[in-house]
């Protein structure tokens, strides 16, 4: 086991570089460029300035007093990634990757998107830094999130609706990978989550780890101690990895990921990879996937387009295997109730993805004592979801 951990690009047995030969040299170039620029003072300074001056970091660590009182247990803090420019944690990663692309001499970036948050963030960073941008989005998702499609177009990106397969996030990744094999010389694939072939899971984690770096300092300043638990939603797992990373060494901090149980993990309509998935190799990585007994990747389902993915990043699979992090499943109904709850209680309309984490905290906080602390990563804002929630509740909206 320890020998495996030492292997490049692996988290235990998970990770690796399972991609076509056409991409191998390019992925190695990315690996080298990242190794160089992550230590380059000018690059780090430029990124830091973008995060502060453009994205609005540091994000607030907000004490949710009403929620704390109402739930009657642990003290609840909310890491407000929803307040970042473009409305989610996705901006942390894309500013890093698009800046890296520019340093590598690339003139074009491509990306996949599910809910559209990563697509919007990538289009934003590309507009700011002057790169061409093309986004691949499942056709079904372009319909569920039509507003985000228009947003990306306003930002100058070209959006390709993907009509293959299940027409959702997994197919958008397939198509973005195909496009990358078609054109690597001037193009970087800006992957949106802690998944795909090495070095993406590491790059995305590093750029997202600013979340826990700040949160750790902020909670120490406010409370003089570390939290007892941090909770985040998990699709591919980028906001959760960002939220967990700087707490991994703090053994007394419980790390909890919330995956989408859709209509329930005992139905065939969920996206709960840790609860129901199995080991496999897909999208460039060895990890856990929802798949059938033949190794065919399953169609997954969640009310949240951002969690509607049949796999999970390799480092999460590893944290699960070692028991360092724990993963729970949250149904659509629980998430929608939490979405409504935090709106009423704290006046925050959060992303339906993030509502999965809120839902778990609603169960967890009352079981903990008043001197214990929970931090929720509120990964994004929920404007994009309002229409879908209304539909879910049977409310007919006319815009």
């Amino acid at each position: 086991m320890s020998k495996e951990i030492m292997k490049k690009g692996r988290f235990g047995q998970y990770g690796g570089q399972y991609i076509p030969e056409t991409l191998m040299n390019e992925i190695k170039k990315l690996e080298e460029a990242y190794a160089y620029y992550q230590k380059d003072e000018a690059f780090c300074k430029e990124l830091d300035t973008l995060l502060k001056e453009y994205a609005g970091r540091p994000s607030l660590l907000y004490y949710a007093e009403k929620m704390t009182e109402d739930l009657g247990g642990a003290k609840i803090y909310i890491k407000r990634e929803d307040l970042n420019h473009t409305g989610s944690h996705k901006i942390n990663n894309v500013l890093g990757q698009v800046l890296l692309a520019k340093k590598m001499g690339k003139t074009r970036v491509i990306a996949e998107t599910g809910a559209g948050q990563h697509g919007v963030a990538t289009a934003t960073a590309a507009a700011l830094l002057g790169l061409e941008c093309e986004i691949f989005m499942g056709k079904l998702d372009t319909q569920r999130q039509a507003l985000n499609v228009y947003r990306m177009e306003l930002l100058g990106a070209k959006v390709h609706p993907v009509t293959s397969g299940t027409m959702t996030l997994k197919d958008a990744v397939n198509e973005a990978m195909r496009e990358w094999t078609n054109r690597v010389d001037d193009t970087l694939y800006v992957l949106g989550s802690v998944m795909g072939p090495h070095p993406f899971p590491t790059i995305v984690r590093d750029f997202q780890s600013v979340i826990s770096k700040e949160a750790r300092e902020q909670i120490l300043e406010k409370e003089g101690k570390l939290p007892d638990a941090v909770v985040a939603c998990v699709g591919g797992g980028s906001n959760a990895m960002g939220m967990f990373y700087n707490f991994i060494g703090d053994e007394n901090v419980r790390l909890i990921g919330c995956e989408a149980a859709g209509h329930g993990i005992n139905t065939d309509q969920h996206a709960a990879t840790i609860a129901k998935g199995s080991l496999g190799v897909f999208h460039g990585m060895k990890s856990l996937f929802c798949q059938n007994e033949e190794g065919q990747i399953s169609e997954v389902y969640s009310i949240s387009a951002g969690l509607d993915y049949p796999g999970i990043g390799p480092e999460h699979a590893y944290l699960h295997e070692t028991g360092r992090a724990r993963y729970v499943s949250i149904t659509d109904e629980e998430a929608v109730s939490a979405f409504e709850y935090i709106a009423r209680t704290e006046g925050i309309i959060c992303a339906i993805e993030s509502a999965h984490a809120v839902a778990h905290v609603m169960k967890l906080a009352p079981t903990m004592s008043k001197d214990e602390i929970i931090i929720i990563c509120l990964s994004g804002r929920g404007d994009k979801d309002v229409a879908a929630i209304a539909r879910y509740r049977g409310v007919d909206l006319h815009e």
Partner: protein
Amino acid sequence: MSRIDKAFENKKAFIAFLTAGDPNLEKTEEYVLKMVEAGADLIEIGIPFSDPIAEGIVIQEANIRALRAKTTVEKVFEKVKSIRRKTDVPLVFLTYLNPVFHYGYDAFLAKCKECGVDGIIIPDMPYEEKGEILDIAGKYDVDLISMIAPTSEERIGMIASKAKGFVYVVSSMGVTGVRSEIKTDLESIVDVIKKNTDTPAAIGFGISTPEQASHFSQFADGVIVGSAIVKIIAKNGENAGEELYNYVKSMKDAIV
């Protein structure tokens, strides 16, 4: 000498690809035998996968048709066993890694040997990752076939020197699919391969016309055609035999 070696012995090989189970496995057997009769020297059989990331739209759709026809790995093995009883043509699987991983590397390769499969091409398993399967493939005398791409550059020597069966030279950037023009300097790539190995080199991706086949066979040891064949099957469904025969014959005849 292996069946794959024989396919390249003193001649240029025409390699034909189809997706197993498209439109059904009975037809797969018929079409394989038809293409062999027309002169195909090696048959590449694709195991259908839900998410074939290296394939263009033509072969993607063949994968979907095959999966809808309830094609499973086990059924493909049974069919290949039946084909093997009727022909000595070398048979090579093209499969994404996940179905093999799920079947179990040892069990899958043992079954390959039992059914008479001579080689295996895994487009999502590059040189760096093949360690987890290489020894097992060797144990069952199944050649793990390596791919070389237009972007491989300094990797060509490393890959070619360890190549088994034949080297699959990817003609173009991107995914599989018919192309009217192939711009890569394939002659130089084949030159580097030849300096590093005696294993034959066959060119695939984008080839569909006898003119292209004739041109590439002047410096490569073989030509691989997939999408053009799958298109004929897509168009004719269960009645593709005659057109496949004529097409494969025209391609084989064009190879010098």
